[in-house]
């Protein structure tokens, strides 16, 4: 990574920290503590399942909200406030700025997820009194959640490179919702006929497949994740995020910063 990308990324991370984005960890900690105590009192035998489901879903939702609401402003806010002028008048290329911003937000989300994951494991330890071998799969589910963050961050950046923050948020959130039902969309495409089939198939493969990256339920039930699936989902997320980033760069490279 070029040093300029690294510096832009670290400044983006610093901005998130100073803007108190990581304060969401406090809300998450309160949620996990409350849930653990409550689950310990009202459920018998399924405490782990509830804690893993609740904890990982909360991590995913908190992260998605952060990714979308910070991601949509990464470029547009810099243009609007004209902070970009003093960056791009230096030996910084536009693609370096976009990539640096991406890594900065991705880094923020990884750190955020790391601390939340500690919370989930502490809650698990509280309800089970000990760790189990199957708890290791929680790490895989967390990894898949991070892959989802990479995709949504790249998409938020993509929309941010040409539209207003509000529209970018609408687009990114819509894609998140549709992508969470990507498997259903593919099923519908398989059953449809004629032009509808083409359109539905195109849409099904164009939207990010968040459904296949969601293994929370399997992990909560103690089921393992195949190594091949981990590899293929990693490749899918990387390629998807890279393509969205390339799109953002292509648009941003041509944009007049009025």
């Amino acid at each position, binding site marked *: 990574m070029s040093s*300029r990308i690294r510096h832009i990324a670290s400044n983006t991370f610093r901005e998130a920290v100073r803007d108190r984005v990581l304060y969401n960890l406090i809300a998450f900690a309160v949620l996990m503590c409350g849930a653990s105590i409550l689950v310990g009192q009202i459920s018998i035998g399924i405490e782990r399942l509830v804690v893993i489901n609740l904890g990982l879903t909360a991590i995913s939702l908190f992260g998605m909200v952060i990714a979308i609401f910070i991601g949509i402003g990464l470029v547009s806010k810099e243009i609007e*406030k004209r*902070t970009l002028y003093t960056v791009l*008048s230096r*030996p910084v*290329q536009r693609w370096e700025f976009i990539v640096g911003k991406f890594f900065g937000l991705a880094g923020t989300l990884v750190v955020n997820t790391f601390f939340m994951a500690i919370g989930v494991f502490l809650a698990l330890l509280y309800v089970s009194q000990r760790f189990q071998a199957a708890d290791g799969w929680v790490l895989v589910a967390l990894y898949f959640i991070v892959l989802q963050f990479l995709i949504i961050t790249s998409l938020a950046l993509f929309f941010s490179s040409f539209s207003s923050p509000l529209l970018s948020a609408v687009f990114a959130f819509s894609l998140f919702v549709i992508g969470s039902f990507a498997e259903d969309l593919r099923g519908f495409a398989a059953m449809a006929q004629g032009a509808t089939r083409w359109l539905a198939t195109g849409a099904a493969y164009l939207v990010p497949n968040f459904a296949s990256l969601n293994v929370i339920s399997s992990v909560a039930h103690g089921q393992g994740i195949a190594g091949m699936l981990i590899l293929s989902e990693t490749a899918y997320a990387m390629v998807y995020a890279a393509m969205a980033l390339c799109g953002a760069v292509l648009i941003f490279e041509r944009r007049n910063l009025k």
Partner: protein
Amino acid sequence: MAAIEILGLTKTYQVGFWRKRPKCALKPLNLSVEEGEIFGFLGPNGAGKTTTLKLLMGLVYPSAGSARILGTEINDPRMKSQIGFLPEQPYFYDYLTAAELLEYYAQLSGVVAKDRKRQVNEVLARVGLPDVSGMQLRKFSKGMLQRVGIAQAILHNPRLLFFDEPMSGLDPIGRREVRDLMEELKHAGKTVFFSTHILSDAEALCDRVAIIHQGELRGVGAVADLTSSVEGKVEVVWHGNSVPANVKALSPTCSVTGDTVRAVVPEASQDALIDALRRERLRIVSVTPIRTSLEEYFVQKLKPSGAAAGVRA
């Protein structure tokens, strides 16, 4: 070598939502700035000064034409380590302290790690902000932000500086300090290209100026050359308490104060006015040439083409 060479640089925006129509922000601009000079880019608000600077910085792309900075095309990022840019009304990452911001910019400009802290401290002292280096920028006043803006532009010791309205938001002392800084930069061999609509600053500082209006270059040259091209005026004062009709025909705006009358006329009318006063047997007290200011040249150049036709080129 010319520090800046602009060849037919043009910018046209498409405006309107449904029916796009072209709006010319900059008509083909040809300009050359030599190394080591302080060059003033003058014009009223909306004249095209900031558009020109944005084109040179690569923030907007030209519709036609080209430009070279320090011998390198403007789209070559390597050139940018040699330049510093202060945007108009600069805004910075307000969650950073002044020192953190400058350190970040030093990193992006490729200043080596061991020199960064020293250069940041030096430049903060140079713009008069040594005591607030640890304060977040969100607590800075407009004038302090302008000083930070100047600091970030000169931080990496560039050869060529672009300042967009550098005096904006500064108090008289701050303006004086910026003027002194620009003089220092010139003595250090730097080239300074700055836009302004404050003509007294340009007159005091610039080796040469260019005047732009409605996206069109209206004049360029040394201040003395430009002002000498404007038709001179003379002030004639004589004894009396009224203005005779034949004198009034030559000078419609005479002012009577006590027993003296004062008239300002173009140099070409000077002899005719003196002859008229002699015919009326009025005693002439003084005939004084009036120095033409840059402001007068500027006002002449901003007039529509027909109105400016009377001005000698």
